[in-house]
Structures are given as structure tokens and as C-alpha cells.
């Protein structure tokens, strides 16, 4: 399946976190790869978005938006450094 990259999540994540999240740096819990959210592989041709590690393809983040809430799963990340 075709993916895009984390740049495409800038609006959705920016609205949630209130800061520019594509330059946040995540560490993959599976392989330890460290990099910006912008470089993650994003599968978003579905009601939600799945963000995968560009090195090992593990699922790092999942974001599903409903009409009055957003569901965010970060369990694939060891850490996420957010710019403030």
C-alpha cells in the first residue's frame, strides 16, 4: 500500500498538541530508530492514520478522529521529544 510521510500529519497533530509536531523526535520502541515525525511513513487512506517507523515499519502512532474526540495510540514509541 502506498504511504505518504509525517508532513501530512502536521495539521492534525498541530491542532491536538498546540505545537508544530512534525519536528518532534520519536524513538521507535522496536528498533530504536530516532527521527522526526515528518519522516515517518503514514498510511492515511482510512478513517484513521497509522504512522510507521521508516526503518522497521513497526506501528509507532495511530490517530483516529471522531466528531467530538480524537483517539491517540502512541504505544509503539519509546519516547517522543516535543518542541516547546
Amino acid at each position: 500500500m502506498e504511504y505518504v510521510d509525517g508532513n501530512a500529519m502536521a495539521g492534525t497533530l498541530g491542532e491536538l498538541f498546540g505545537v508544530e509536531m512534525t519536528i518532534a523526535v520519536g524513538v521507535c520502541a522496536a528498533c530504536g530508530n530516532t527521527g522526526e515525525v515528518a519522516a515517518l511513513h503514514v498510511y492515511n487512506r482510512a478513517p484513521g492514520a497509522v504512522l510507521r517507523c521508516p526503518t522497521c515499519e513497526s506501528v509507532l502512532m495511530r490517530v483516529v478522529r471522531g466528531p467530538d474526540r480524537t483517539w491517540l495510540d502512541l504505544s509503539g514509541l519509546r519516547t517522543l521529544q516535543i518542541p516547546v
Partner: protein
Amino acid sequence: MAGTAVLGRLTWQPAELVEAIDETSRARTLVFDVPEWMQHRAGQHLDVRLTAEDGYRAERSYSIASAPGEPLAITVERLDDGEVSPYLVDELRPGDRIELRGPVGGYFVWEPDRGGPIFLAAGGSGVVPLMSMARTRALDGADVPARLLYSARTLDEVIYREELERLATEQPELDVVYTLTRGQPEGWTGYARRVDGELLAETAWPAHESPLAYVCGPTSFVEAVAEGLVGLGYPPKRVKTERFGATGGR
């Protein structure tokens, strides 16, 4: 509709189309008036939200084409099976209102103080954020050496062709190189194939000049160019990428 945008908080804002400019048979530039828009940085994008009468909503991201300080413009290419782009390219009229959210993105960004030399590689409508960088550079930073490699299917599908040729003529530090992958005009002496390692070796700055590269286009184009540049010795951190999927997109 939420009220006034609070500084630093990203919200949907009403935008009025003030001008539409046909760029190619499939691409159109849309200039918007947004009363409380924050100034963007070259390379950033925005999200468009359309709401149908029955409440159905669709959102898409599009790169900003204008330089900071210029009227806010995006360029949209029509995807024939698209849900949003045919409306934006064919239907939206000056005076119509839609909603915009942005500017967003902090990774695929170039500002004159980042210096260069810069190597910009565009696949199709991936040229849009790179055009914002070229325009920014022309206004404020024309001494930064820049090369744009633009892969298009045909010459007619090259967006901003007149402006690119004018900039390249006026500015000795800017080179524009096309490769036409599907069809070439008679007498074409330029590149006529998909970007490969050899083509990059001939057009990109040598790695020892510490260039900064920005690559935007369909995912397969971006992967090929980014790998090719790393193969030429570019550090991966100096190759900024933005992928928009199989076709079209932003």
C-alpha cells in the same frame, strides 16, 4: 465555526478565493484572503476543508506556493478520481469561501539564513513548495546558489514554466533543469527519463559543497531521489523529503 484564531493555536479559518490562475490544463493556482493568517515559511503547507450541504466534510493538505509576505497562494493539480482537487481546480470561483488551517509543517522548510547551496528536486506538482523556496530566495537571498531539477511528464505539464525561466535568466546563481519522462517536444535536447543516479550525479551539487536538498513529489520519486543523493554522499539529515503518495496530492 470557532471564533477568532488565538495566536499559536491552530484552528480552521474562513478564507475567500480572490484570484484563480490556470497554470496547466490540470493545475490551478488559488489566491486566498484570510483575515488572520500567520505568515508562513517557505515549504510549509496548509489544510483545506470543504463542507457539503449535508455536513459531509473532506480535508486535504496542499503546499503553499507563494513566498512569505506575498498573497497566500496554493497550486492544486486535479486528480481525476479525487474528492477535493476537481472542485478546487474546476469549480471554485473568486468570492467563494472555504476553510483553511495552517500554516503547518516545520521540517520541509527553507529560509535564506539556512544558506546553501540548495538542491531542489520536484516530481510533478511536488514543485509547489519548492517554488515557494525559489520565490523566497529571489526576494531575499538570491546569492544562495540553487539548482532545481524538475521531473514532469511533458513540457505542457510543467507548472510555473514562464516564471522559472525568467528567474533562471535573471539570476546567475539559479539553474533550472527539466527531465520530461513521457513525451518531449521536437528538438528537445534535455533529459527525457526518470531521475536516476547518473542524472543526479550530473545535476546535483557535489556532496563536498555541503548542499542542502529538498525533495518533493510522489512517494516513488522521493524514495529514488533521496536514495540517489545519499548514494552520492549527501548525509541523510541534509536531504529533506516530502511525499504525497501515488499521484497528485498536494
